[in-house]
């Protein structure tokens, strides 16, 4: 029987198609999480009220930020999930090497982040409609009216970038955990520890600095560059680390 040669591009394409199908549970959990986030958001993020005895005014602010936060968390969780044993060895059923496996995971996470970004932004419309119809008696959208198409696209784009950044964080964490089981506990403990110290200090700490670095960037292009450079580094680290990893079952 003659040997077959397979180009890397062909294998990555096949793996990507396979993963969209095999990892479809990831998208189910996305829908579920976003629904929960919308439900939570129905309580409003802030409210005030006044009354003069005759008239009572109750003012509530609603925001879909919670949905975005949940989606980012979902990004981390999904990325960690596909590095766990149940998923990571799927590639080895068929044709793979470590690089194609990592690259097809990257494509999958890009797709997932994109879908997560779209649905997160669109859910703010859902929130508005639900609040308008069922919760509030008088509904005021933001003073500039409903956002325009460009604004929505920009929203989707930056949501996508944030989620993708979190995916890459999760992916690196998941890869690290494969080296030693104890990292499963150490890694979250370290992150929580640093957070805790930040809070205890009372001043802006590491996380706040990191947050500002991305969040206060006013140029969309620079923001894009910052995120992509960070995500790229995270991915390279994961791919480099996992390139010599064995398949253990």
């Amino acid at each position: 029987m003659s040997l077959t040669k397979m180009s890397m591009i062909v294998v990555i394409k096949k793996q990507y198609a396979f993963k969209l199908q095999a990892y479809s549970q990831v998208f189910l959990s996305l829908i579920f999480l976003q629904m929960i986030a919308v439900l939570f958001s129905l309580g409003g993020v802030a409210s005030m009220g006044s009354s003069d005895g005759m008239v009572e005014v109750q003012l509530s602010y609603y925001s879909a930020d919670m949905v975005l936060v949940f989606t980012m968390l979902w990004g981390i969780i999904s990325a960690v999930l596909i590095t766990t044993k149940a998923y990571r060895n799927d590639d080895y059923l068929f044709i793979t090497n470590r690089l194609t496996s990592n690259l097809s995971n990257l494509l999958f996470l890009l797709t997932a982040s994109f879908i997560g970004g779209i649905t997160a932004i669109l859910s703010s419309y859902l929130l508005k409609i639900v609040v308008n119809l069922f919760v509030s008696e008088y509904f005021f959208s933001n003073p500039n009216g409903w956002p325009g198409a460009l604004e929505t696209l920009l929203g989707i784009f930056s949501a996508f970038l944030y989620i993708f950044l979190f995916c890459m964080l999760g992916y690196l964490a998941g890869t690290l955990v494969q080296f030693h089981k104890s990292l499963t506990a150490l890694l979250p403990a370290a992150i929580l520890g640093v957070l805790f110290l930040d809070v205890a200090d009372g001043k802006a700490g590491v996380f706040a600095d990191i947050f500002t670095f991305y969040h206060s960037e006013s140029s969309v292009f620079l923001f894009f560059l910052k995120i992509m450079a960070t995500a790229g580094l995270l991915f390279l680290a994961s791919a480099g680390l996992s390139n010599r990893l064995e398949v253990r079952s």
Partner: protein
Amino acid sequence: MNAIECKGLTKMFGRVKALDQLSCTIEENKLTGLIGRNGAGKTTLLKIIAGYLRETSGEINVFSQPPFNNLTVSANVIFVHDQMNLPTALTLEEILAAAGSFYPNWNHGLATRLFDYFSFQPLQYYHGLSKGMKSTFNMILGLSARCPLTLFDEPTTGMDTAVRKDFYRALLKDYMDHPRTILLSSHYLDEIEDLLEEILVLKEGKQLLHTTIDELQEWAAAVQGKAAFVQEWSKNKQIIFSEKVGMDQMYTVVKNDFSDKERQLAREAGIDLLPVSTSDLCVYLTSSSIGGIDDVFDKNVDDSGD
């Protein structure tokens, strides 16, 4: 051409040596049986060949390339084992389609015919199958992929006798129609020996024996008769197994290098020279002591510990 070549292949797990300076070659298009006790290193060897594990030292080439992290080797090898982690989100039908999308030689006709023959339902999920059914499904993947190198690690785990027979028949037929290199590890040597052309016996991570199955069938002989005579007859031979039978009888398995003259003399002396079945022989060869489990219960051994 050789499909697999190992030289001084060693694999350590922590301080445990799973493979110890293993050197062997598997020729192309041969159906070889991989035999050994649990822990002899069969699965480790197969995992290294499939590129799952990296050798600690030594050299291994599969189709003249080191298999670890190698896309070409991966494209030409399918590794079927009982720990296969098939995606839980896909139905059996979808898994077959996915496998078909990867393997260039995949024969979907064969896959679906076997699928129907073994009464699988297209919409079933893999994790819902019984152990035997899982093995059967894995086997369908392994055969239909028609990879130039097909590795089966204990493929019949959990299968009932009828399915095992069907599997052997399917394997042989497909092998004849599409000759390829097949490595088959199994605990049931007596069931598979007729299918095999060669047999590779591992013991404690080393190659113990690599020969054609025909030679193995004549490789050893059992000497049976009065203990004194048997000891006399097996004096200059390589003793593989020995046990006392009854009062003064003895059964000793030795390497078969008796000449016709010796056979004649033995017969006249009332000594039986008997053939040894290959599966018994492999048990004797791979056991750690010459007397087998009986040594453990030997009453002559002092139990007091001094």
